[in-house]
Structures are given as structure tokens and as C-alpha cells.
């Protein structure tokens, strides 16, 4: 008997395949030519534009929008890619509501910003559809750089280095390249295998070799990489997760949200991904939202996301919270997990007292047959020799680590938000510094 939303326990295929396909379609559908023209006309071409300042990769947004409005979206895309080679993915996943669009002067004036993200997608889609790479490599320098991690930071770094004429080898522990773009981003933000398509397109610059299934600390050592290459960039992300130190945390049905999402992302049609009838997601960040929303989209009947602090403290943006609730996710604030039982999760109510979170003693239980832990990722597997800053690899403003010849960027490195676009900026900037250091 096929399963449905009310089937008890964990079950795959709670919804018909076509329904699941529809649920995971583009969250923000692409603009068509007419819509793009109308929207681009709304841009005021601000001086020293606030949107540009807010963009971690400092894309010249007024210029690319003007290029769209004058009928040259390909030129617009070049403006974008010159700053951010993963401008296609960023157009899909950037929390624009807290970056460029938040500070758009039309947001100030009318509460309706120019839809910068969708315009960026319009332009980048247009150029990428030409299946030719917009940049050419400089003359070969004879230098060879190792990049560890084929996520946004590593790819941005590798691309910029290749453009400068260096040879690059990217190593990644997973069987596929792309990092969080391939394994982490919510499926409805990058449908149609966009992460792999973009990867192939980025590699179209040439000079980049990708070696998969090699893990730093496993088959790879930093010493070997340094010996065999002229420089090393680490974009290893956050491979570990924070532990949930409560009773029952390792019961069946309890899983790390990042692992569950990675499985979902690798599934062809998602009808084979088991999901609970009643799902509890513990956490308040983007991973928690992505997990909660996607369990609903797969047909979970009741999905509750529980965060120990209040709404204002939640890392997920207002937009993302609204997205979750619009998909039928219930969000409970100010409740900390105390125990996972064989019927659900027991929470204790919390409140903030003088900036400190205290438990009130009042408890309640939410029934669950699937519990997803999304309480944060941590650095793991980094070389011992590197100095840390807090829980991340310490880097200076150029991405240099404490070891000469080793750079780092993206989520694994100190400074900046853990965003795709920030990782791209850090990878790109580290590449520029590596290039300068190699003196080629």
C-alpha cells in the first residue's frame, strides 16, 4: 500500500511523484524578458549604491540592471561574473532580503525593493545558456595551487587563480564537487541540477583539475599539499555538527539535518527519501528552515521547528521564517530540548533574563517519529598546525592563515557570515592575494 501523509513512522513517497516535483519547483521562478524589462526600469541607478555596498562580492548592481534595461543581459552577466563567478547560484540562494534588497532605496521609499536577485538570475541564466565561458585565461604562470574543498569558496578561488594563468587542482572529500551548493542548499532553490551545471560552466575556464574522494586528514595531508604545490587554499567548510547532549539523542529516527538534506539533494525524484508523519526540527538557522520546509514538501503531516531563543534572535531571516510558516511549518520559540523519548521530544520553556537564557521549568512534549538536529555546524578535520580564532581557522583580511603559503576562506575561516556569497568573496580575494604572493 502506498504511503500518505498520515502513514505512521518514517515513510518515503507520502505524496505522488508529480506533487513532489511540483513542490520542489523553483521557489522564485525566473523572470521572462518583459518582466525583466519592467523590473529593471525600477532601478534608480543610485550613486555609490547601497545595494552594491551590501553585496559581499560588491557586484555593480546599478550597472548590471542598466545593462538589462538596455537589452544587453549578456553584458550584465559579465558585470556580475567579474565579481562573483557563482553569480548564478547566488542569484538563487542569497538572502537578498537581508543584503542588497534590504538596503535598496526603493525598499526605503515604497517597501518594495527592486528584485535584484531575480534580475541577477535573468542575466546570468542568459549568458550561461550560451554554453561558452565569458573569461579567458592569462598566459600560463607555471605555478600550481591546491584548493581543498570544491564548495563556493574553493570554486571561486580556483576560478580566479585559473584566470590568472595558474594551474589548480581542487580536492574534495565527497564523490561530487559543489560543496553546500550540491549537498546543502534547499532543493527548491536550485532545481534542475543547477549546482552541477554551474560547476561545469565554471570549470569551462580551463586549467582546473578536480580530484574527488580525497579528505584532508585522510588521504591528504597539508604537508604533502604544500610540498607539491606553490600555494594551498582551504575551503573545507564546516564538516562537523554540534552535539545534542540530551537523553535519547541517538534514538532511531533522530538524524542530523545536514545529512538528511544531503540525501534529499542526491535523490533523483525525492520519492525515495523517508520522512516522518510527525517531524520535529531542533534549531533556528537556515538549515533548520530548509529541513522543516522540505519535510513538509515531501508530505510530512505535522512539522514543528523549535528554537530555544526568541524570534528576534533567530538566525533565519524573517523571509525564511515566513516561507516556513506559509508551507505549514509551526515554529515554536523559546523552548529548549530536554529529552528525546520513543514518542517524541520533551522541551522546556525558556525566557531571556538580562540577556541570559534561563529555563522556566515548564515542560511539554511534541510527538515525533522523525527528529532532525539543526543546531549548528562546526569546523572539523582542519590541520592541527593552523591557529584558530574562536572555532574557525584564523585568517587575516587577505585570507592568509597562520601558516605561510596557506590561505583559507568560506565557512571554515574566521570573519564574515556563513553565506554562499561571502564564501565566494573570500575565495576570490584569497586568489588575488595568492596571485600577488606568487609574483607571477
Amino acid at each position, binding site marked *: 500500500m502506498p504511503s500518505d501523509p498520515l502513514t505512521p513512522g518514517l515513510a518515503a513517497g507520502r505524496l505522488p511523484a508529480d506533487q513532489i516535483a511540483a513542490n520542489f519547483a523553483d521557489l522564485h521562478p525566473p523572470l521572462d524578458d518583459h518582466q525583466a524589462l519592467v523590473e529593471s*526600469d*525600477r532601478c*534608480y541607478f*543610485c*550613486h555609490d549604491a547601497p545595494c552594491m555596498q551590501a553585496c559581499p562580492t560588491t557586484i555593480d548592481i546599478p550597472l548590471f540592471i542598466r545593462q538589462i534595461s538596455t537589452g544587453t543581459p549578456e553584458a550584465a552577466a559579465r558585470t556580475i561574473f567579474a565579481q562573483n563567478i557563482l553569480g548564478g547560484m547566488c542569484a538563487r540562494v542569497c538572502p537578498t532580503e537581508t543584503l542588497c534588497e534590504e538596503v535598496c532605496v526603493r525598499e526605503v*521609499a515604497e517597501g518594495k525593493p527592486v528584485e535584484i536577485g531575480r534580475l541577477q538570475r535573468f542575466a546570468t541564466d542568459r549568458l550561461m545558456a550560451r554554453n561558452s565561458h565569458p573569461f579567458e585565461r592569462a598566459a600560463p604562470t607555471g605555478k600550481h595551487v591546491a584548493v581543498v574543498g570544491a564548495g563556493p569558496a574553493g570554486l571561486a578561488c580556483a576560478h580566479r587563480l585559473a584566470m590568472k594563468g595558474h594551474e589548480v587542482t581542487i580536492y574534495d572529500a565527497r564523490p561530487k564537487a559543489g560543496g553546500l551548493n550540491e549537498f546543502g542548499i534547499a532543493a527548491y532553490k536550485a532545481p534542475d541540477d543547477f549546482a552541477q551545471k554551474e560547476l561545469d560552466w565554471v570549470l569551462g575556464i580551463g586549467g582546473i583539475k578536480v580530484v574527488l574522494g580525497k579528505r584532508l586528514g585522510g588521504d591528504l595531508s597539508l604537508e604533502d599539499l604544500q610540498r607539491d604545490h606553490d600555494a594551498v587554499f582551504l575551503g573545507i567548510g564546516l564538516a562537523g555538527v554540534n552535539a545534542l547532549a540530551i537523553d535519547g539523542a541517538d534514538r532511531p529516527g533522530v538524524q542530523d539535518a545536514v545529512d538528511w538534506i544531503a540525501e534529499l539533494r542526491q535523490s533523483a525524484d525525492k520519492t525515495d527519501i523517508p520522512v516522518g508523519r510527525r517531524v520535529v526540527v531542533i534549531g533556528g538557522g537556515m538549515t533548520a528552515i530548509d529541513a522543516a520546509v522540505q519535510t513538509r514538501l515531501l508530505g510530512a503531516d505535522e512539522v514543528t521547528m523549535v528554537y530555544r531563543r526568541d524570534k528576534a534572535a533567530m538566525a533565519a531571516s524573517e523571509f525564511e521564517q515566513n516561507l516556513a510558516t506559509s508551507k505549514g511549518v509551526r515554529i515554536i520559540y523559546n523552548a529548549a530540548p530536554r529529552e528525546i523519548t520513543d514518542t517524541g521530544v520533551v522541551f522546556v520553556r525558556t525566557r531571556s533574563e538580562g540577556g541570559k537564557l534561563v529555563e522556566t521549568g515548564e515542560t511539554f512534549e511534541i510527538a515525533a517519529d522523525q527528529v532532525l538536529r539543526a543546531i549548528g555546524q562546526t569546523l572539523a578535520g582542519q590541520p592541527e598546525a593552523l591557529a584558530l580564532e574562536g572555532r574557525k581557522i584564523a585568517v587575516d583580511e587577505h585570507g592568509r592563515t597562520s601558516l605561510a603559503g596557506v590561505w583559507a576562506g568560506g565557512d571554515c575561516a574566521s570573519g564574515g557570515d556563513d553565506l554562499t556569497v561571502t564564501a565566494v568573496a573570500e575565495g576570490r580575494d584569497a586568489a588575488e592575494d595568492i596571485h600577488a604572493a606568487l609574483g607571477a
Partner: protein
Amino acid sequence: MADLTSTFVGIKSPNPFWLASAPPTDKEYNVRRAYQAGWGGVVWKTLGEDGPPVVNVNGPRYGAIYGPDRRLLGLNNIELITDRPLDVNLREIKAVKRDWPDRALVVSLMVPCEEEPWKRILPLVEETGADGVELNFGCPHGMAERGMGSAVGQVPEYIEMVTRWVKQNTRMPVIVKLTPNITDIRRPAEAAKRGGADAVSLINTINSITSVDLDNFAPEPTIDGWGAHGGYCGPAVKPIALNMVAEIARHPETADLPISGIGGVSTWRDAAEFMALGAGNVQVCTAAMTYGFKIVQEMISGLSQYMDEKGISSVDEIVGRAVPKVKDWNDLNLNYVTKAVIDQDSCIKCGRCYIACEDTSHQAIAMSDDRVFTVKDEECVACNLCVNVCPVEGCITMRQLEIGETDPRTGEVVREYANWTTHPNNPAVKAAE
């Protein structure tokens, strides 16, 4: 509610909004729909001589200029005068006028520059019961190549001659429609008056090429790979038309000549502006061709509300009211000193005022690190560019310095009215001393 009835050269209409001689007034069907929609009058699309009608191109007749969101700002056309037989037009005119006696119906005419053709056609028009005729000395394309339209309008002697023939051969009021494709609009207006015209109407369309096809390297609209200049109209031409209307209205030789204002009239406000500068009524074309005839309802309600709010009871009270204030540059008060003021509460911090002033004007706006924009009074020459480029209505205004105040830019105290004719820098003043 305000009384919008209008009497123009003796022709009565329930409101001063007429449709200009153009495609919307080419035949009975359209004109009836226009009257039903509420238009006060219509100038029937230009009739030519009896005989085989003119033919139009069968490719595009129009080209357009757009603003944001494809808002049509300017329209160019290469359509000729009516391409329907004369007798059909005359029969329809008669039928429409019979059914709509309270609406103005003027017939536009264009026949060769000889007396006989005019003598032949005028009685035929008179017989329809039409209220008047408008002489098309304006169309700049096609017919001009055959010695008609603007080819007549560009030669004041011809205007005077033909107008005189027409006045001698009809009892109907005669309106002479002028072309803007000349150097001084007052000369053709004077000629029309000398010929006995009851009024002039202006402007007709402006010679134009709307765009160029950059794939085929041909002007647009393109007919089989080629293009010819057309006549430009619509909101884009309004400032040119307003000036020409005002020039005639304030010129001593033509100040008493009634004017029917034409050129980009799209809203009640445009109409009121034309009338304030001396137009007795207005004629509309492009706005109707863009949105349909219903726009006249907004024009009627808007002008009514405006007149009620101003305590104006008749449209004649608006006509010419701004004319005394149209002056030569020489007359302007050089002691009128203003400074831009940016309202920080409504500023959205786009920085357009700053970059416009910094790059292209007087470096009179300061920008702080946190994007606060302020005017430097000691640099501001009051050019108004910041006001013009600001996207927020009312955010930047100009403050007038009081007499006795010191202008921080010049260090001079603001004095009473004085113009260039008495300014010490004027060589002519020195010469007189």
C-alpha cells in the same frame, strides 16, 4: 460643478476637449464613439480633392518612443490624409453632425495650392452642416512632397494667400493649422491673421525619425528596408508646443488671434496649461490613440475639480492667464536668489542629486559616510538639477532668500528686482553711461 462649456471662434462645445484631425477622426464609426465617450468636438481627418483618394503605405505607419514600462512618450507617423473617397466622408460628416448637434465638428482640408480646388471643396463641406474648417498647412510627410501640408505652412505668403481664398469662399469659421517645422512660429501666425483666419491651431507634428534598426541599418518605422521621416507627436512634444502657443499669444501682432492648442495633451492638467498660455481649447490625438477615447472622462473630471477648487466658473477665465508672465530672459529678476533644501525625512538616499551636482554642476551637495546629503549654500547656484533628478516628489525644494539676506555663495545682500538690462556686467549698460 464648474461649467466646462466652450465657445471657440463661435463654435460651441460642451467642453474644450476636441480630438485633432488624425486617425481617430477618420470616419463616422470612430467619431460617434468619441462623442459617446464625451469628447466636446472633433476635427475630422483631413479631406483632399475629389477623385482617386490618396494611398497609404501598407507597412508600419507609426513608430514610438517609450519611457519606463513601455509608457508611450512619443509617436511618429507617416500616414497621409484620408484615403477614403470624398463623398463617403462628406456623407458621414453630415450624418454625424445631424445626430450630435451639440458637439463641435470641424473639417480639416488639404487641397493643392490653387484657388479652384479650394473653391470646389468648400461648398461641399458647408453643405454637411459642419461648424468650421481647419486648413492643414502642417503635415510634414508625404503630402509636403506634393506641395501641400507643411510645404504651404513653411511659406507665410502661401498661408496668407490660401487663407484669403478660403475666407472669400465660405461663411464658416476658418482655423489655420500651423507646422512647427519653421524657425519662428510668429511669422506663419501673422500671415494667417493677415489672410483673415479666425484662429490658428498648433502644433502639427515635428519632422522625426524615431529610431534606427541596428541590424538592418534602416530608419524606423521601416518599409521594405527603407524609411522616411514622419511627424512626431505625443507627450514628448508638449514643451515645444507650449512655447509656440505662448509665443503667438504674447506677440502683439497676434495676441488677439484665437488659438486651438495641440501637442501632447494627455491629461486635464496638460489642457489647462495650454489654455493658461493662451489656447482657447485643446485638441488631442496621441493620448486617445494610446488609451482609447475614455481618457476624456478624466480630463473632464480633472478640469472640473481644478476649477471648483480655484473658484473658476468658466474655462475662459483660464485662457491666457499665464501669458503676461511669459517674458524674455532679459526681463528676469537677477536678484531672485534661491537655495536647494533637501528634506532629510523624505530622502531615500539614492545619491542622484549628489552625483548629478558633483559630476555635472557646481559641487554644491555634500555626502557623508552614512549617506546624508546636504546642500552647500556657499556653492549652490539654484540650478534646480537636483530637484529634477530626485525620484521623490517634494523631497528637494528651493528656498527663496529674503531681501536683505546675504547669499553665502556671492557674499552679496539680496536686493529688490533688477534684470540684465541694468546689470553692471552688461556692456550695453556701460555704453549708455
